[in-house]
């Protein structure tokens, strides 16, 4: 049997020590009417047979075409050293660092991750990560509910719609009111956001760039929130954050992000990681694991899980969150990605992708009936209005090996003719030309 070491003789010796005749005797406590019939599962297969089966399934997925699909989740180049280091079993076959003395590798890596995330968004501290960006958004909202002791959230409609759907599910049984403030042609309606923030709301939640790729400055809204003793929460895109005005500079209280763009493969939706950073005064309301620096009995520097009095294993029903694990290996990959790219690598990636997006806009808006959806500044993703339904165009272009982007009508009513197009460093000018030619033939 695979992965089981005992020989039949050893099994007999062990049964004799225990004082039973057969392994089956050890299961005698299972109530008789609850015993399982024999499982109707396939027979075990060889390693190579399982690999062949999954290789065949993997080959059925189309990943070789040209793609401008982003919508919050981006194909980026990942240095191979990320795979090599995160692929060390010293990291991936360990568990949560409960025993600090034999887990300094994991603990120090998380401390460095917390530092890198804090510096990226210019807030005081970060936690060790949560499951994904949507979870981070919900957990940040719950931090605000506890801190402000209020139950209303003001949410910009231009925040990632997949996460807003999660927020609705997670708050459904919690007596929390969500006031969604509509966007206009993909631009966040800052006047309406200002008007919606009052002394009854726990937080205002925005995103930069927003889901439509629009870059903005939310400082006035966070100032208004502060005046109302509400929190300012912002979701960011880590790659572009290397050049964009930071949550710290804008006066946000909590920043969250989907960390996928930092060293994680797209992998059909996961595993990813949610980044969370906040001002120091809010840290005791953080969910999940946090690592702190300390000293040992000889005064030597070391790292430990800290502020555990917030957590479920101690506080149970009164914990800040039910989250037990963090996404340690994903956090390690994000840290390695940032350490290898460095500030210049991350900034040049952002600038390259913004420039390529501008080239795509130039090429596509030259086509008949294609225009920018709005005139707001944008980053590396942009909303384009088309002369026909975007979903129709996407289907037709895919048949020619080019995926032009995300048809926004899928998540925003009334935007059936709008395409969300993203460029990253995996695209180049030649691909954009090919996109323009393909769309030119279809319009």
């Amino acid at each position, binding site marked *: *049997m695979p*992965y*089981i070491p005992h020989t039949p003789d050893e099994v007999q010796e062990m049964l004799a*020590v225990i004082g039973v005749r057969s*392994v089956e005797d050890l299961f005698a*406590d*299972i109530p008789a009417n609850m015993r399982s019939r024999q499982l109707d*599962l*396939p027979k075990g297969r060889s390693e190579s047979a*399982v690999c062949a089966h999954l*290789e065949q399934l*993997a080959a059925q*997925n189309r990943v070789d075409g040209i*793609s401008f699909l982003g919508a919050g989740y981006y194909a980026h180049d990942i*240095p191979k050293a990320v795979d090599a280091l995160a*692929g060390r079993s*010293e*990291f991936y076959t*360990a*568990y*949560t660092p409960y*025993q600090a*003395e034999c887990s300094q590798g994991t603990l*120090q*890596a998380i401390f*460095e991750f917390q530092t890198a995330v*804090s510096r990226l968004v210019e807030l*005081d501290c970060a936690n060790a990560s949560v*499951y994904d960006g949507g*979870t981070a958004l919900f957990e940040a909202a719950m931090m605000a509910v506890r801190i402000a002791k209020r139950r209303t959230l003001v949410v910009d409609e231009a925040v990632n719609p*997949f996460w807003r759907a999660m927020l609705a599910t997670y708050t459904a049984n919690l007596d929390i009111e969500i006031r969604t403030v509509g966007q206009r042609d993909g631009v966040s309606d800052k006047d309406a956001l200002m008007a919606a923030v009052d002394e009854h709301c726990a937080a205002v939640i925005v995103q930069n760039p927003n889901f439509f790729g629009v870059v903005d*400055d939310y400082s006035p809204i966070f100032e208004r929130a502060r005046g109302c003793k509400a929190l300012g929460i912002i979701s960011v895109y880590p790659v572009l*954050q*290397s*050049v*964009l005005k930071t949550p710290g500079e804008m006066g946000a209280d909590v920043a969250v992000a989907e960390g996928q763009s930092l060293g994680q493969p*797209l992998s*059909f*939706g*996961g*595993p990813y990681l949610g980044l969370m950073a906040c001002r120091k005064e809010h840290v005791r309301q953080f969910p999940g*694991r946090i690592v*702190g*620096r*300390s000293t040992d*009995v000889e005064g*030597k520097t070391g790292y*430990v899980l*800290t502020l555990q009095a917030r957590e479920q294993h101690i506080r*149970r029903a009164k914990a800040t969150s039910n989250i037990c694990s963090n996404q*340690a290996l994903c956090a*390690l990959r994000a840290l390695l990605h940032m*350490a290898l*790219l*460095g*500030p210049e690598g991350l*900034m040049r990636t952002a*600038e390259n992708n913004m420039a390529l997006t501008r080239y795509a806009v130039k090429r596509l808006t030259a086509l008949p009936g294609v225009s920018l959806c709005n005139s707001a500044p944008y980053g590396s993703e942009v909303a384009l209005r088309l002369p026909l339904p975007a979903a129709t165009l*996407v289907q037709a272009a*895919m048949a020619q090996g080019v995926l032009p982007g995300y048809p926004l009508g899928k998540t925003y009513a009334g935007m059936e003719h709008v395409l969300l197009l993203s460029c990253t460093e995996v695209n180049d000018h030649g691909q954009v030309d090919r996109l323009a030619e393909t769309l030119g033939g279809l319009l």
Partner: protein
Amino acid sequence: MNTIFAASVPGRRAWTVNSQAPRATDMLPAGLLRANPPRLPQCSELDVVRHYTRLSQMNYHVDANFYPLGSCTMKYNPKFMEYVAQLPGFARLHPLLAQLDGRAAQGALHVLYEIEQLLCELTGMKAFTLQPMAGANGEFTGVTLMAAYHKAKGRQRNIMLIPDAAHGTNPASASLAGFTVVNLESRDGMVNPEAVAKAVQEHGEQVAGLMMTCPNTLGLMETQLPRIVEALRAVDALLYYDGANMNAIMGKMRVGDAGFDVVHLNVHKTFGTPHGGGGPGAGPVGVSEKLLPFLPLPRVRRMEDGTFALIEDAPQSVGHIGPFYGSFGVIIKALAYILRLGGEGLTRASEHAVLNANYLKKRLEDVLEIPFKERHCAHEFVASAPDGLRALDIAKALLERGIHAPTVYFPLIVHECLMPEPTETESKQTLDSFVQAMRDIVDTGRTNPEALHEAPTRLPVRRLDETSAARHMVLTEDMS
């Protein structure tokens, strides 16, 4: 050891972007840009490789150390599983592609469908959602489904019964889903059916359900389960199965047949996917017939022509628990594991997990204080540090000997608790050397307790000051 930030040299680079792009200042107004570049490390590739290679060497891990961390199922993670998850056809697949054109992601949808069928047969449940991204996320999903069930019947049920020995995530998840938790006291190391009956009598129509871990966190099978199921059924309350201890019952008990309505599995425990230093995991949730209409969206369906499609049309669904289809990269590994072992192999895994735990328990009977000694344990057991010794000291002394400590101080109802879970992949020789180490440590503790307080002395650090870490809060390089 210094941090990677200390190794930073201004202007040093590991990664270059060959781009003619202008700077951000030429593309966006200055008011939208950050004033200073992010203070990330500036290192060569070798700087980074050497730093993290050295850091990795400061970890105990399953590939080098016996890691009998109770409740966490630290079994060996077969290497081929890493290979299949990294296949480009999976790793490069954008999650939204399946929603734009299902034909472009048939292989991935097939993976989701196939593992769902296998999990249903293994557990006796009717359907699974793979969306929950970890065990606790699965718990939240499960209790949210329970809330939806009662709500659909037009009733307000706000009480969740939870045994005192439960994992802390149970009450935290129930509370997050809006439930009030009522604690059930254990008797003889098990859920007391009379306490359940009493709670049902007292709260009756307000009881939404009971969350059970079975075998429980003391490593004991719940022999009174049929009575408990009956008491809950009488008021149409639902029974939740916490799959943390699933590694004890594969092929021996199907939770669906036993009367559970909802179950979460921890694939990183039961199906050998790596724990990753704390994640990522995955927490699929299975349901009985009653809860089918409430499952999260989207679902995967096999169409008449044999192709797979995503279904979004389910008016009673609780909605979206994750952005897409769960921790897909982890789910592939779990599928590979299940296919490799087959039904017989999974059954054998549970048999040997239980065999190893009982062997270890028996051999430690004269070393540690073991409650419920007269009973067989499941895949793990609890013990108390003997003779006034502290569980913490024993744990640290084990580290000194190259062995990861068992879980300590959980469950809370056991004095100076140590909870070893050997798993099926460990050999008799490893178990014997653990027993010998434990015997040496306890002998040392009896004659020279100071020596135990000192441990560990040969690891990268000695015992750390956790109190001052919480008080002074140095959480980044910039806080001090």
